[in-house]
């Protein structure tokens, strides 16, 4: 539900209740007012009757055309001060409320009890009028508020949507500060201020974290270099026993793993630090061809590499593209079987690298995550594919994986360079 709808719902109910209440109050006030006026007129008539009786020693003749009725009766003594009474309307449609004033009057030493009554006219009409006015006003108000809100809504909330759009375009690590448009509305400005502050803070924290990763990796390079150099020296000893050799070999292998892990982490940090900015249109066919030749040379007699290449262009950072291809080629050889095959096909905007391997498909939902390892005996650091994914994301390439039997296929798809950017 939109805020606007919710707001309208509440305000409309409040308005309806308020109007009903106010109509009721209005009605009673009107009624009270009419009664007061009527009572005043009855008091005036009382005075006039008293004056008349004083002068004429008789009661005035009742005018039957008038709605005023005067009746008098003899009493033995005065019954007290004048009193008003309301007589509810008698049966029948057009009967009105009747207001009656009773007072006592002395004339020629005789006490009379005089009653003046007058119908209160127009109460119904007044009530009806009040109700109609209230309903019409209410209706008009609701319509007007709906229209005005709808029309105003977009204009008033426009800065809000602009800010939300800006937040949506905010990318962590991209150093462009988000552009929140200034508005005249205090609340939105306050919100934008907070957004701005938050974006700056988040960016700062992120940069600190990334720098930390990069610095930590760098700092590790030197001790690693020392360990490796010491091992290089230690293995030169000609009198090493078999156990010592095995120990050194195992240390050596672990240093290698650590070094490659560190390199990968550093690479990831650099990619996310945008240190590989800038791209060019790459003739991917030639690049692939060079790689394939190198690969065939390396794996001569071990793996059979077949390929089918057609011209294709790609907009990317050449260094990143190199890393991407190296990773995919490394994977294709690492996870291969003895005398296995690697099949490479480049067609338009699609590169497919297939290799033979164990007949166990990779977990597609997790394969691009960091430190994903397909199997327990996997000796890799599990960062290769996450680097592939990161480069693909940065370059606008869509990577996908499929497998059938013992064939694993990685496919990269991209748009033409003119559309890629």
């Amino acid at each position: 539900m939109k805020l606007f709808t919710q707001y309208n719902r509440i305000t409309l109910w409040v308005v309806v209740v308020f109007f009903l209440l106010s109509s009721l109050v209005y009605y009673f006030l009107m009624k009270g007012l009419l009664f007061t006026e009527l009572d005043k007129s009855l008091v005036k008539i009382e005075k006039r009757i008293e004056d008349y009786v004083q002068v004429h020693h008789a009661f005035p003749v009742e005018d039957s055309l008038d709605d005023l009725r005067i009746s008098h009766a003899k009493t033995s003594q005065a019954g007290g001060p004048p009193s008003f009474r309301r007589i509810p309307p008698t049966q029948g449609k057009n009967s009105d409320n009747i207001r009656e004033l009773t007072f006592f009057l002395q004339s020629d030493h005789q006490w009379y009890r005089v009653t003046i009554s007058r119908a209160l006219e127009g109460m119904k009409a007044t009530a009806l009028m009040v109700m109609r006015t209230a309903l019409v006003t209410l209706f008009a108000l609701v319509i007007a508020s709906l229209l005005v809100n709808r029309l105003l809504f977009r204009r008033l909330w426009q800065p809000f949507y602009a800010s939300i759009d800006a937040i949506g375009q905010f990318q962590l690590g991209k150093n462009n500060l988000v552009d929140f448009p200034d508005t005249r509305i205090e609340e939105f400005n306050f919100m934008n201020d907070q957004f701005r502050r938050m974006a700056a803070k988040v960016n700062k924290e992120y940069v600190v974290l990334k720098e930390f990763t990069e610095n930590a990796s760098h700092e590790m390079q030197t001790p690693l270099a020392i360990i490796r150099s010491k091992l290089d020296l230690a293995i030169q000893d000609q009198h090493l026993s078999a156990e010592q050799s095995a120990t050194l070999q195992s240390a050596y292998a672990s240093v290698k793993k650590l070094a490659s892990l560190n390199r990968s982490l550093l690479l990831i940090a650099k990619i996310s630090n945008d240190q590989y900015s800038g791209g060019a249109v790459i003739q991917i066919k030639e690049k692939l061809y060079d790689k394939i030749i190198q690969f065939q040379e390396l794996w001569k007699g071990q793996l059979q590499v077949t390929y089918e290449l057609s011209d294709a262009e790609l907009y990317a950072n050449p260094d990143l593209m190199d890393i991407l291809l190296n990773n995919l080629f490394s994977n294709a050889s690492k996870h291969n079987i003895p005398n296995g095959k690697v099949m490479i096909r480049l067609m338009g905007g699609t590169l497919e690298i297939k290799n033979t391997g164990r007949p166990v498909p990779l977990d597609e939902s997790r394969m691009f995550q960091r430190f994903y390892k397909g199997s327990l005996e996997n000796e890799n650091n599990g960062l290769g594919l996450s680097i592939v994914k990161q480069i693909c994301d940065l370059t606008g390439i869509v990577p996908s994986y499929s497998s059938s039997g013992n064939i694993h296929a990685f496919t990269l798809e991209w748009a033409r360079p003119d559309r890629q950017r």
Partner: protein
Amino acid sequence: MVMNLLIVEDQKELSNSIISYLSTENYTCEPVYDYNSAIEKIHIYTYSCVVLDLCLPYGNGLDILKQLKKEDNPTGIVIISAKDSIEDKVLGLHIGADDFLSKPFHLSELEARIASVIRRRSFEGKNRINLDNLVLDIREKTLNGPAGKIDLTRMEYLLIEYFICNRDKVVTKEAIGEHLCGDDIDLADNYDFIYTHLKNLRRKLKNAGCTDLIKTVYGMGYKYCSATSKGE
């Protein structure tokens, strides 16, 4: 002829390792641990090659490199750096370094790079190595045996060159693997391909009438035991 090397590296432990690995009959190494002493040394002496770390106390290794280049020094320069960012590499090579090796490296790789830099920089036949009936031509990338040229694939040539540069030293499979396919290809623990190329190389050497001097060091790697060097 003995070559002088200047090792500019502030990490003493690493510097010591490099020196004890390289200090054979071929090289004498001199270590310096900071920028100022490095500048001082390059002004007084001439070295065949300078192994240069970029992050140094009191200064940047790149400035030492610039200094060497300004003076038209014939010294070869191999940068060893923990910062293996592409820009640093490109910048270093652009200013005039001969090679760039990122840490952590194999000492055998460093020796091969130094040897290659020194030979590239020197002229008059010094780009040939004569050893045990073999003549390795670094410039032409060929190997000649007693009966003439031995036809090698690129991989086999890289192997024999690496072995000869690191003769009488144990080189590990890891180091050979990285040397053959560059830093960028991650091989995990799969070194079978080395074995294939080595087998072919050995066969070719044998056919050319050479004794097999490449020994397998069990579990570790290989060692080219030069027949002419001392102690073997």
